[in-house]
């Protein structure tokens, strides 16, 4: 697992008080009991950690931890203005 994936998992684990070892890229938010508000809070943490800006309306499409990691990869690879 690369650095981006591990950092995302750590953020999610800390946010929900979970053991990072219990989270994989395939873990769904439903299975981790992550609701809409949790997702928003996690999005703020991820933005700060990676210095990125997640589109406000993007959260609805995020269903798994892997979706978050993919999103971070896209946003960190885009040229910044």
């Amino acid at each position: 697992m690369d650095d981006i994936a591990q950092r995302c998992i750590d953020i999610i684990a800390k946010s929900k008080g979970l053991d990072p070892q219990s989270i994989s890229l395939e873990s769904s938010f439903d299975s981790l009991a992550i609701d809409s508000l949790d997702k928003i809070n996690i999005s703020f943490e991820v933005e700060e950690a990676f210095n990125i800006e997640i589109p406000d309306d993007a959260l609805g499409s995020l269903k798994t931890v892997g979706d978050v990691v993919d999103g971070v990869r896209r946003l960190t690879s885009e040229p910044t203005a």
Partner: protein
Amino acid sequence: MRISAVGTAYPQYRYSQSQISQALIERWADKLEEPRLLQRLHANCGVNFRNFVFPLEVYPTLVGFGPNNDAWIKAAVELGETAILRALDRAGITAADISAIFFATVTGIASPTIDARLINRLPFPVNVKRTPIFGLGCVAGAAGIARASDYVRAFPKENVLLLSVELCSLTWQDDDQSIANLISTGLFADGAAAVVISGSESPLATRQRPAPRILATRSTFYRNTEKVMGWDISSNGFKIVLSPDVPKVVEENLLGNVQGFLQDNGLQQSDISTYIFHSGGPKVLEAMEQSLSLPPNALAPSWKSLSEVGNLSAASVLAVMEDYLEVHPGEPGSYSILAAMGPAFCSELVLLQW
């Protein structure tokens, strides 16, 4: 008995979701700890546009329950009249042909009620029977159709009117920055809908216009779920109660309700062609889809209504019904379920045949 026509009415001030979010962020600049939270919650409500009875800049001048409710009465009468005239026109009748009015709302109070004020404006018979309904919330659109159909079952030669007016923007609370209120201000909107329901021996029953028959209705009360949704009433008016458990309650109960209802009517879910569901919000619609294992796009008109006008509480499912009647009516003989859920918590199901 049939749903003969539906007419909706929306107030003139229409805003994009981002305009509304920005206006509230400015209005609550000294109250919000994290303005991005409001913006992000609103952006994920599945709502792109909403209509309101006032320009956004007017709302901060309406302080306290009294002024908001006074504004509600005036606007509810105007919007209700427009919706009624549209529905009557589509049905090809006038107010004089209506025997009973059911009026549902949860966003303002009045006595005499809004339906009474409308009888002074429109040529309803002086003997028209009035049933104002307050407090059913989002479920009242489906419940209203059900109660109105009970009436024409008893009086099959008559036509009755269901009117729902919901002006959710006049319930915004400046001193509540809870998550529930932030979501509420991102989800709910203003609108009205009127429905003409005609008895089986009414002249409207034989018209060629698409008008689905109401075959059966089903109310289901979920015991001990009072805290899931509703209002806390304070000196400032209506303060939203909106639990994160709403989608869970929907998902846990809807399938059983639908299966039991259909079984009692000699049908099964595979007999249902279309689902005319209340546009509660993205989580509620997803829960409905999952609970009933619906195919993709089965609730597309509900999602579209949510996106274009927001959650209109009781009027939402009626707006979706209007879309079906006017744009894509069912094939003759096909079955639909019209459904809504709301405070109590509870569900109301209506079985239709086109």
